[in-house]
């Protein structure tokens, strides 16, 4: 998996905000529209949403806190 460089992230960040605001059942329509508007970005945005599904399934940062390591 390639890391995004800072400029890529800054470009994608507002679109990620938009799509994360939507309920799951509205995202496909939004992404379809986005593909026509920004074909250069849509695949990377889809990867980020897939990353989100994976990390949610892994409970990444959610099932623990750093401070629990202090015990």
């Amino acid at each position: 998996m390639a890391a995004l460089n800072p400029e890529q992230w800054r470009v994608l960040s507002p679109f990620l905000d938009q799509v994360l605001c939507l309920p799951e059942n509205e995202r496909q329509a939004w992404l379809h529209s986005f593909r026509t508007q920004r074909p250069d970005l849509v695949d990377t945005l889809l990867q980020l949403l897939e990353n989100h599904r994976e990390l949610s399934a892994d409970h990444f940062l959610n099932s623990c806190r750093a401070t629990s390591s202090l015990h």
Partner: protein
Amino acid sequence: MDVQPNLLSLIDSVERGDTSCANALFSTLYAELRRLAARELARQGVPLSLSPTTLLHQAYIEIAPREGPSFPDRARFMGYAARVMRGLIIDHVRSRHAQKRGGQFEITSAPTDFEHAVDDRELTRISGALDELAEVEPPLAQIVDLRFFCGFTFAEIAAMKGISERTAQRQWEKARIYLHRKIRSDLEV
């Protein structure tokens, strides 16, 4: 109480973009938080325990009035202090196997029970990725400091930063995406 007299000027300098003052600011806050923790723990007696959230609140309550009316708002203080708290926690985790616990102050988790402890190396990787995120999109990194390292709830973070709880949650999700991708890509190198 001996509060560092230059805390306000250091924060002002960093706010104006003078990044050369950032290390001095964090060192000053770091020393102050350690001192507050040690004093509070001595007052509490055994068993020694102090949550990061309690420590940050205590620090703000004690420092803010002494810095005068122009002290930056609570949100900015908490942002800086939360980052300093991350440094405290990382340092503590790194050194915990080398130190005898007697006589050392110990930061404990918030009252919530957590399923798993974070591996020390994972914690270091998260912190490194978080430093990078702080350069790219600072509000996201601050959310992680406040939630993951200090244990604040979304409601508390939203109130602190003057944003809606929903926005705080969305920023948290974005930060998780960034950090997860960054850590995984680093591990694959």
